[in-house]
C-alpha cells in the first residue's frame, strides 16, 4: 500500500496524479469564469424567494457579458451586496438610465416587497458592476448536496474521510 514511497520517482508520480485532479478541476472552474466573465459562474439557489422559477438546490449557470444588449428589466440576475458574502438570485424589475451607471432595482418573484431592504445600509439601488451574472441555464436539484453540506458540517468530515481513504488505498 505504501510501498511506492521508497521510490522517489514513483512517489512523485503518485503525488502528481492526485495534484492534477485537484488542479484540473480548479482550472476548469477558472476557465469557465474567464469565458463567462463572471467570478462565480455557477451558483446554487439557497432560498425559495424565486419560486416557482427556481427552487432551493437548483444549480444556475451565469453569463456576465453584454455582447449584444444591456442587462434589462425582466432578466434574472445574481448580485452581491457589499458587506455580505452570500450572492442573491432575483429579477430586475426597474431600470433607470442606461450604460454602466444605470440604476437597477431587483425583487424576488415570491417576495411581497422589492429588495431595498436587502441592500447595504444607505444603498437604494444596484449598478451593473454589483451583478455577478444573468441566469442562462439551470439544472434542478443538483445543488442540493452543497446545501446539505453547509447545513450539516459533519457530513463534510465524513466525505473527506471517505475520499482520503479511497486515495490512500488505491494506486490507480
Amino acid at each position, binding site marked *: 500500500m505504501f*510501498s511506492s514511497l521508497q521510490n522517489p*520517482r514513483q512517489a512523485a508520480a503518485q503525488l*502528481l496524479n492526485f*495534484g*492534477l485532479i485537484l488542479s484540473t478541476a480548479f*482550472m476548469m472552474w*477558472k476557465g469557465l469564469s*474567464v469565458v463567462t466573465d463572471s467570478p462565480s459562474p455557477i451558483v446554487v439557489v439557497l432560498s425559495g424567494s424565486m419560486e416557482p422559477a427556481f427552487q432551493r438546490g437548483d444549480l444556475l449557470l451565469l453569463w456576465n457579458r453584454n455582447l449584444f444588449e444591456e442587462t434589462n428589466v425582466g432578466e434574472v440576475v445574481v448580485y452581491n451586496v457589499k458587506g455580505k458574502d452570500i450572492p442573491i438570485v432575483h429579477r430586475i424589475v426597474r431600470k433607470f438610465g442606461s450604460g454602466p451607471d444605470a440604476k437597477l432595482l431587483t425583487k424576488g418573484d415570491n417576495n411581497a416587497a422589492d429588495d431595498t431592504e436587502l441592500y447595504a445600509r444607505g444603498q437604494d439601488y444596484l449598478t451593473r458592476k454589483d451583478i455577478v451574472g444573468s441566469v442562462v441555464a439551470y439544472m434542478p436539484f443538483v445543488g442540493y448536496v452543497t446545501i446539505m453540506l453547509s447545513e450539516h458540517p459533519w457530513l463534510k468530515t465524513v466525505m473527506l474521510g471517505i475520499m482520503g481513504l479511497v486515495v490512500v488505498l488505491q494506486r490507480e
Partner: protein
Amino acid sequence: MASQEKISVYNLADLKNTSDDAIPNYLNSLRFRQSHRLTDVRLTLGFSALALAAATFAWDCKFGFDSTKHLTAVAVALYTLLNGALALWISRVERGTVYVGTSPSGDEVRISTSVEKNVPVYHVTIEVTSKGGKKETIKIDRSLAEWFDETGRFVAAPFQAMFARGVAVIGSADPKRARVEEEGDQKEAESAGAAAYTPEMLDVLAKATGVGSASDAEATGAAKKGGKRRKA
C-alpha cells in the same frame, strides 16, 4: 518493494503493478543502467502545470477575480497546453513503458507492458536497439499466474526467466536464469503443467509461510503449487 508483499490475485492492477515493479529490480541487478528520461519529462510537465495552477490560485485569492482576469485567461490557456502535452507524452511517447535502460554490453532495451481489462495475461513488448543501431521488437504474452502463487506472492524465478530466455540481451547478462528455465521446461513436461519451481524456491516459500519442510517441498508435483494448502 511491492514484490515482497502478498497481493490479491483477483486484482489485475495489483498484479500488473507488482510485475512492473519487478522489471527494474531485476534488470538493474544485472548491471543494466536505467534511464529515467521518460519519467522525468512527464514529472516536469505535470509539476509545471501544477505550479501554474497553484500560482493562479494564489493570485486569485489575493487580488480577486476582476483585477487578474487577463492573467487568469493566459494561465488557463497555458495549463490546457501543458496538460495536452502531458496527455500526448503519456499516450504517444511513453506508451506504457516501464523500463528503459542500457545493458552492460551497450544495447538499449525498452520494455512496455499492458493488460486488458479482466484478462489475466501480461503483454510485454521489448524493443532492443543494438549498439550498431539495429532495432528489434519482441512481444511476449504470458499468463500472470506463471509468477504469482495462489496466495498472491510474487515468485521471481519464472518471471525473470521469461525475460532471460525471451530476450537475447538479457539472457546473455543472466546466463543462469536462461538455463534454469530450460531445465524447468523439462520438469514441466514431467509434472504435466505444474509451475516450474526449483527446490530452493520451494524452501524459501515454505519458510515464509511457516508450514512444510524442505523435504516435503521437494516431494511431488502436487506440492509444487506452493502456499498453505500444501500439507493437505
